[in-house]
């Protein structure tokens, strides 16, 4: 199921595997599209049966600083409610953005 909010460049697909919520990000995550990720993440953060939230980045083509800011916000919120946030299949370009932004050590990369 792809939860598209009418913006063509970005799409979040939510899947559930036991206590893990996998949010697959596809396309360009920026200021214009981050509300979609926030909406999908809110559902997972509110769900008490979820203990791990995975952002699957295989199909992420672009990430700007506001998207990065949202990941940090989600990381903090997950930690506060006893969940963990993981980044899966981080593309090389995203890895560079994390490194240059000094945030590679903050996230749990799988």
């Amino acid at each position, binding site marked *: 199921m792809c939860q598209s909010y009418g913006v063509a460049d970005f799409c979040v697909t939510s899947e559930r595997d036991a206590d893990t919520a996998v949010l697959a990000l596809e396309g360009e995550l920026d*200021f214009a599209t981050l509300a979609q990720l926030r909406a999908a993440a809110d559902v997972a953060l509110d769900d008490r049966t979820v203990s791990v939230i995975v952002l699957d980045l295989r199909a992420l083509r672009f990430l700007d600083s506001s998207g990065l800011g949202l990941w940090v916000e989600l990381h903090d919120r997950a930690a506060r409610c006893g969940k963990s946030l993981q980044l899966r299949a981080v593309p090389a370009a995203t890895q*560079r953005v994390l490194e*240059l932004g000094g*945030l590679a*050590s903050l996230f749990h990369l799988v």
Partner: protein
Amino acid sequence: MSRSAWEPESPRSGFSAPDDDVAHRLHQLAEVTTELGWAETLAEVAEAAVGHFAEAIRAAVATLMVRSGDRLEMIAGHGLQRGITEMWGSFGIEHANPASEAAREGRVILLDDVAEIERRYPSLRGQMPQGRSLVNLPLGAGPHNVGAIGLTFEDGWLPGRRELAFLTTFAEACGQAIRRIRATAEATQQARQLAFLADASAELASSLDPTETLGRIARLAVPDLAEWCAVQVVRDGALTTVAVAHADPAKVEWAWELERRYPGDPDAPAGAHNVFRTGRSELYADIPDEMLVAGARDEEHLRLSRELHLRSAVIVPLAARGRILGVITLIRGEAGERFGPADLALAEDLARRAAVSMDNAQLHNAAQDVAVQLGRAVLPESLDDVPGWQIAVHYRPGGQAEVGGDFYDAVPTPEGGLAFFVGDVMGHGLVAAAAMAQMRAALRAYLSIDPEPSQVMTRMDAMFANLGIARLVSLLYGVIGPDGRVRLVNAGHHRPLVVGIDGSTRWITSVPQRPLGVGGDDRVVTECRVAADDVVLLFTDGLVERRDESIDTGLARLAEAASGLARSPGPGALDRLVTQVGLDGGEDDVTALTLRRAPG
């Protein structure tokens, strides 16, 4: 006569301090300066400026005067004798007094001889007790000046070089805060208008029933602006009433009925049709009975018109790009006040917005203006001339409706070096833009206590932790000494690029550090050296980030193009570099800054 407040050998005075108090006093002043960065109202600025600040420096009298047109208005005073506030509540910018002079000429006024003060400013005669000294600080220079701070000290104290630097920084921060508060208020107002426009445009575009949309526009005006509002638009060449709103819903039907039975005369010399024909507004402060009589078709019409108890009316055109789309009529009944010129202006504004909302093309221009306006209010367009340094800056706020959060500055250090910073508040919108102003104010305050990077970063991290700031901010902060020694901390920002005189380029690489607002990182200071003719280039995302490529590609492109800065590091070359590598009409802020020691 002048003495230093923070040196232990200074004699006892209202402003002197024992040695162990010096650090505390500096901190107190830095805190007050930082406080300004967070002030959201003029009252908070006043509290910081004449309350906390005056207390920290032990001034006998402190006043804050803010410019309003060609006058200075005293908005706060501390320690004033009775009657002074009344006498100096408001005075001309051209008047011969130290505050006007400081504001007008953008310079600090220091005087410690009462006879001299009275000679220069006869209007102060008899107002200064013997032995007093006087310090007046402009709130910003040139076109950016927004007023002055006036201080007097009981024992003739005048600030030394270091203290004066601090006082000037404080006054500038005050001016910044006032400009930011004004710009934020204006930008918020504009943003509200934009939101209205965007909503209205969306409704007009999506609604299958434009009558419903115009009805909402009519209801916006009632009851705040008028008791009764009618919207008429052109339908098949004729002016047709499409919406009526009344503070008393029962009267809405009444108004429709009147309209149906007595449609307006297209050739009437006054009223809605005339406004429609001419495009000129009409204001009727009073609607005399004779006017009703003149306009009535018959006895019944006159009776119905009288029953509406009209008092005052405004009719404005719905005009967009030279076309008259319709008219809005606003009416107040007997219970209301008369319409005046201010109401007319407001009604015209409402009509303009309603009309423009049908015209999407103008939206983006207006949104861009908000970004530019706020950016200009809080960021220096060009950096001060710093002796011994060549500094160039290029700043362009982002496009669309998204105000970005880039900030930057370069400030001389007491040792003849340069403290510099470039940062980016992640995210967009007015909140990010206000945050950038806070970052700049805090950094300037902290670096004036001690520009050492580890000190400044520790204080910034503590500020984020103490205030619970959830926003992510990348920051590159550093100091270059006159000997070319660079010490910097890079908190999640782009590395600086060094361009040698031969056109070679190299990055100043440091341990990756987390942005401000994430926490849990020890700050590591990176040290290196640059040659006398090296150019140091600082920048933000907007210069190197493109959607269709890796960030490394953008960085490599910049490094290659930047070799051109080697020979001419001035603003022209920097602008060319930005044009060469930047995105045309990109949505992000673009900031680039070059620093080089001046030759000789």
